[in-house]
């Protein structure tokens, strides 16, 4: 598993979408490259590091995208639809996963690797595992709002459209989610738990 840079750049334009709609495989490949890590990361953190779930959801999302992209008229409509699919797929998978785990409980719980020393890596992993575990313990609606805000940097209006709720509900879910995380992980206060501090 490799880390990649979180970026707010959005190199996909309407022409790329149109190329995909015409069946242009290079256009679709570009679309895949731009979104695959975002989709994969949301699913990965939603499922507490379960790579099989993240893999399955990413595959499903892009297959559906491949077959239905012709419906979209604008880039904004496209991204909203994409993340709505991700949110729905995560919820569906969550329901189904309970059953799959009865056959295969050997879920691999890997975390991202860094280039730090082994000792730093261990500390980093423990912190990230705590954060990831706390996030996975949030109610699904709070969890998805937080992941969409963090990984996609979507506005509250955009998250509201993706999740099918009001902007006020988004604000409320993020408020609540962040407060719960702060309370659950109070022991990380002053321990370099902030975003930059953890990674630097």
């Amino acid at each position: 598993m490799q880390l990649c840079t979180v970026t707010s750049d959005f190199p996909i334009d309407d022409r790329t979408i149109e190329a995909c709609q015409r069946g242009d495989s290079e256009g679709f490949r570009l679309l895949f490259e731009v979104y695959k890590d975002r989709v994969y990361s949301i699913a990965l953190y939603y499922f507490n590091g379960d790579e099989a779930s993240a893999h399955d959801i990413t595959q499903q999302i892009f297959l559906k995208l491949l077959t239905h992209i012709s419906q979209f008229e604008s880039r904004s409509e496209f991204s909203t639809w994409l993340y709505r699919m991700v949110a729905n797929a995560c919820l569906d998978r969550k329901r189904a996963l309970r059953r799959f785990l009865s056959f295969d409980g050997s879920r691999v719980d890997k975390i991202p690797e860094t280039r730090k020393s082994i000792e730093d890596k261990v500390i980093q992993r423990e912190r990230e595992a705590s954060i990831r575990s706390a996030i996975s313990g949030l109610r699904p609606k709070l969890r998805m709002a937080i992941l969409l805000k963090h990984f996609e940097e979507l506005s509250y209006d955009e998250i509201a459209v993706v999740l099918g709720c009001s902007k006020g509900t988004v604000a409320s879910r993020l408020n609540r989610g962040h407060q719960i995380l702060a309370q659950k992980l109070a022991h990380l206060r002053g321990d370099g738990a902030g975003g930059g501090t953890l990674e630097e």
Partner: protein
Amino acid sequence: MFKNHVTHNLSAYLHGELSADAAVTVQTHLSDCSSCRNAMEEVRFGEQLVSALQQVEAPESIWNEIHSASKMQDATKQRLHWPNRMIAAGIAVAFVLALGLFLHSHIPNVPRGDLASWEVASVRGTPRIGRLQLTGTGRLRPGDSLQTNANSEAEVRIADIGQLDLDPNSRIRLISSNSDLHRIALERGKMTARTWAPPRLFVVDTPSSTAVDLGCIYSCEVQRDGSTLLHVTLGLVALDFHGHETIVPAGAFCRTRPDGGVGTPYFDDSSELLQTALNYVDFGKDEVERGRQLDIVLREARPRDTLTLWYLTSRLREPLRAATVDRMAKLVPFPQTVTRSGVLTLDADMMDLWKAELERVW
């Protein structure tokens, strides 16, 4: 002292989502209210925790699997018109290998050599195989029924070709299982199947139709009156009723009734009005009312809903057929080689050509 705490706006304030006036209000309030300042500190700390999460690179293998699966979907659609079974089967096998590799990576293997009986596991409660209560795992043999009650669920390996989840209050019966065909009856309740086999190897009989798996994820629900609701998540499923086949694509539902046959497929994101009206068009008895309900279907239809209209075309008589064709042509114009009169007379070649055009938006 403070009548209006600002705790509900703290995340929005932190993320710059408030208007300038509202932001000033929050800022002013925070300077005077220790309770809200504490809450703000919690929100800020929670946000910092989340910001520690790093984006992870998706495995490259996903692209290869998508590429293979898309070939399979194309091949399966073409199979409906395409007589060259060998080529279609070859493409299907390529897909199956790719998808199978992936699915087997997180689903344990089924022991080979015992395809005639299927492994069953209790997911919750105590499902029953015949009279035997199942607390762990067991085997389902041809002729056996697997039944769940309100408090139980089960999971079944479909030989070595897939997996089936049985919801509460459901019953299936294994009819036969060999290398050419695996067949069950869903007698009541709901099941979800995932398969990674070539098309048409897994068949589900319900009281009102037969669902033939063309790959690879779908659910089927039989209600008390014997009617069935099929929902396809990925791939395609063929519904057969007295030799007439309806192909239901990914993202679509289709209802069947013992007395009314197979209904018309519709996409799960179509409007509720369309879905309700379509149900009457499919199964209603009053011809005048059917016409009224068809008007609603046509009015509500989006380009994507031409899936529904295409199937309705051959099921309706004039003048309803003409109204349907005209609405469809407005949503997706006829290709050059297709004419209105040809479609109205259900010319097979023209119907196929137009369907190929419509499938671009399905």
